[in-house]
Structures are given as C-alpha cells and as structure tokens.
C-alpha cells in the first residue's frame, strides 16, 4: 500500500473512532449528569432501563427518533432545518485539533494521536466555538416564536460577553508554550500544568467555558423558567436531540480543551497517557455537572456586567503580567 493511502486509512480510522467515542460519550454524559444531579438531590436518577439505567441513552435515542418532527408553519424552514446541525457539527469539528495521547508507533511509522495538528489550533477552537452560537441564534430566529427569539438574542449577547475573556485567558498559555499548536501546548506542560503556573487564567477560562457550554449558571439562552426552553422551544424530535447532543459534545470538547490548555493534556504519572486525558476530561465534565447542581442561574445583565467589567479587565491584566514575567525570566519572547 502506498504511503498516501495508509495515511488516509489512519485518518479515517481515527475519525471513525473519535466520532464513535464522542457520540457515545455525550450520550452517557447525559446519563451521568442525570444520575449525579439526582444523587445531589437525594434521588436515584434513571435506573429502570437495563442494569443501573445504563440503557437509558438508547431509550432516549429511540424516543427522540420516533417523536413527531414538528415544523412551525410560520418558521423560516431552511434555516430552521440547518440550525440544529450547525450546533452539533461545530461542536464535533472542534475535536479535530484536540491531541488526546502522544504519538503512537504503528507498523514502523509514527501516528499522531490527533486528527489534525493545526499550527493555529487555539484559533481554530476559538473560531468554532464562536460559530457554534450561530446554531443558537439562527434556530431562535427561524422558529418565529418570541421565546425562541429572545433565547437566540440572549445567546448572542452572552457570546460577546464571555468570548473576549476566554480568548484573552488563553493568551498567557500561548505565551508560555510559544505556540498555537495544541500538541506543542501539551508538550510544554510536561513538567507543570498551566493551571498551577497561571491559576488566574485557569479561573477565567473555566468561567468562560462554563458560559460557552450554556449550562446552568449561564444557561441564559435556555432559561426554562423564563423562556420555556429558549432557542429550542419550537424544536422537537431528533432536531431537538441534535441541539441536546451538541450541548453534551460541547461539554466534552470544552473539558478536553481545558485539559489540553491548562491541565497538562495526557501528562501524568503511573497511568497510561490516554487514560490521564480521559480522566481530566471527565473531571472537568463532572465539575460542570456539579456546578449545575449547585449554582442558580445568573441574570442576563449580571453576566454581561461580570464579563465586561470583571473578567475582561482581569484577563487583560493577566496577559500583561504574564508577558512581563516571561520577558523578565527568559527574555527570549
């Protein structure tokens, strides 16, 4: 077999595996969330389908697929159709740049354990995370319902208040790793994860990421008790399911990005690298679920104040200080 064909084969296998792992991971994250939230509220959570309720994601899938796919007559049909796809696909695409293990030796050749090691991986992630909000905004707009529209608008306003802070909190990481490539960033954390060397950036990133995932303290675009279901009020069946799956894939992706940027990626003692990576992603996902079980929803203006007046100045200051420290220490930057 020629080299090119082998390369293509490897990429296809990696893609297939990542798709499979991500989708089942997202499905079981839903179950994990329901279980953990239930236990926090002294309930059992789903435990009827299969042992310990482990077949629940399958039952949910069957339910979503067999439900009526209702399209509001007044909706903008084309945009209404593509919006859920946008939400799910942007979430899936982000994983292309996430390195989940060190290079592997297979059949005498090195196979990088990442679909594509872009030299601008960080920017790719930031770009796709902003594109993801198009699913929310367009879905809210195309539904032609006031709740959905309000949800979409809130999604956009939320985006502009956390996105800058998120971008700025990644800058110190890039400064320290001297690269935009996520693989290089992980390699730079072989000794010490950036969460320890720059805890402020980590904190800002975690808050922004929580806002990016549109989950409870920042689930302003959905806000069940204000906007029915926010941007996906008019969606039903598998279209709603795509939004839903997109949210949970996003949670895994953001967990993976946090692991890669701040928690040292696959680096860790004793355990194999891939397991370390999964553990870190799981820990971040658990933190998101924990946060959902703990904090009440912010008001929409509170998030904007918080983002613009606190997070962004802090992140800017952090960039300045980190840059100064790097200049003072190394002088090579």
């Amino acid at each position: 077999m020629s080299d090119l064909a082998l390369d293509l084969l490897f990429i296809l296998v990696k893609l297939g595996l990542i798709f499979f792992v991500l989708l089942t991971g997202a499905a079981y994250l839903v179950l994990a969330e329901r279980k953990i939230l239930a236990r926090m509220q002294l309930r059992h959570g789903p435990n009827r389908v299969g042992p310990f309720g482990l077949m629940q994601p399958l039952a949910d899938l069957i339910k979503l697929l067999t439900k009526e796919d209702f399209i509001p007559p007044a909706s903008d049909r084309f945009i209404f159709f593509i919006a859920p796809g946008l939400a799910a696909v942007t979430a899936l695409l982000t994983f292309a740049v996430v390195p989940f293990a060190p290079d592997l030796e297979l059949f005498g050749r090195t196979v990088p354990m990442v679909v594509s090691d872009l030299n601008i991986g960080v920017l790719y992630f930031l770009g796709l995370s902003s594109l993801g909000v198009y699913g929310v905004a367009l879905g809210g707009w195309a539904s032609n319902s006031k709740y959905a529209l309000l949800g979409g608008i809130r999604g956009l306003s939320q985006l502009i208040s956390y996105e800058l802070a998120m971008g700025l909190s990644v800058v110190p990481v890039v400064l320290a790793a001297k690269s935009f490539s996520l693989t290089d960033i992980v390699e730079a954390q072989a000794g010490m994860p950036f969460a320890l060397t720059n805890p402020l950036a980590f904190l800002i990133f975690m808050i922004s990421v929580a806002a990016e995932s549109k989950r409870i303290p920042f689930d302003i675009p959905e806000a069940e008790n204000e906007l029915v279901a926010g941007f996906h009020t008019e969606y039903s069946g598998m279209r709603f399911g795509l939004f839903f799956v997109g949210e949970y894939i996003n949670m895994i992706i953001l967990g993976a990005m946090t692991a890669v940027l701040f928690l040292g990626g696959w680096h860790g003692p004793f355990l194999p690298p891939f397991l370390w990576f999964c553990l870190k992603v799981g820990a971040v996902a658990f933190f998101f679920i924990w946060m959902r079980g703990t904090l009440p929803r912010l008001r929409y203006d509170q998030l904007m104040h918080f983002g613009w007046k606190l997070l962004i100045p802090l992140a800017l200051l952090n960039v300045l200080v980190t840059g100064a420290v790097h200049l003072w220490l190394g002088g090579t930057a």
Partner: protein
Amino acid sequence: MRFWRDVRGTVEPFWVTLRNLLRRPVTIQYPEEKRPPAPRYRARILLTRDPGGKERCVACYLCSAACPVDCISMQSSEGEGGRRYAAWFRINFSRCIFCGLCAEACPTKAIQMSPDYEICSDEPLKLVWEKEDLLIPGGGKDPDYDFYAHAGVGVDGPRGSHADEMAPTDFRSNLP
C-alpha cells in the same frame, strides 16, 4: 466586605452539594420497596362475614346513601327467616375516593376499609367489583361482632332469645 461574602456564597454551596452527593437517596423505589401503610389506612373496601360465616350485609343502602361519589350500588333481597341480603352488590373503584363514609355508615360492620391500595388498572371496567370480589372469608376488624345476635330481630332465633335481650313484652298486658 461584600466581595468576600459573594465569593463565600459561591464556593460554599459546592460543599453542600458534594456532601449530599455522598448521602443515601431518600427515594422509596415503589414496586420493589413498599412502605407499610398506616394501621388504619383506608383503601380498598371489603365485605366481611359474621362469626358464623354468613354475609353481614343486610342491604340497607346506608353505605350507598352515604357515598359522596355514588360508587356503591346494590339490590336488596330477603332470604328464608327474613334475613336480608344483597342480591348483587357493586362498588365502582374507579370512582371510589376511599373516604370511609360507607364504613362509618354501616350498621352491621359489613363494609370495611382495608389497607390494600394496589388496585389500579388500565381498564376502568376491571375496577367495577362485584359482591364475589368484595367478600372475604373473615370478619375484618371486628371478627366477633354479629349484628343479628344483638339486633332484636327474629332471624337467628326467636325474639328474646339473644344475648342482653329481654323477652318481648305483650303490649296488651301493658294496658292500664
């Protein structure tokens, strides 16, 4: 300071939820785990029998009159010796609200409430119980009670032969 109060108010709840995550759930898993009902729990209605094993019900219609949702219906009849009984007796449990007024109204302690609350069905007609379904072999909460032994009606034996009963007075002899 306000800022530190806010930080504390954000961080402390995490500890609360984590603590509760490790506690046992309080849910009772119903079909597998059943909570024993209270001793005087009012649920499915029964028809009981007297110590002799005969039906206690005398078809007096008091229960059906007392029923606020009109779920009890019957047809009275009279057997040999003047003993009254219900030719048919029917309770529509899809209407019954388990209020217990029928059991309170019953003069013969025939109709009683039992703690058996698992009588649901997906078919309303299955919830219409006939006399054969309602009758139980025993005497329920008061097994020794026998209405006809006290009633002063000459059904079990001639009048005046029951416990705590004087012989009937010949009213003609009472005339002045």
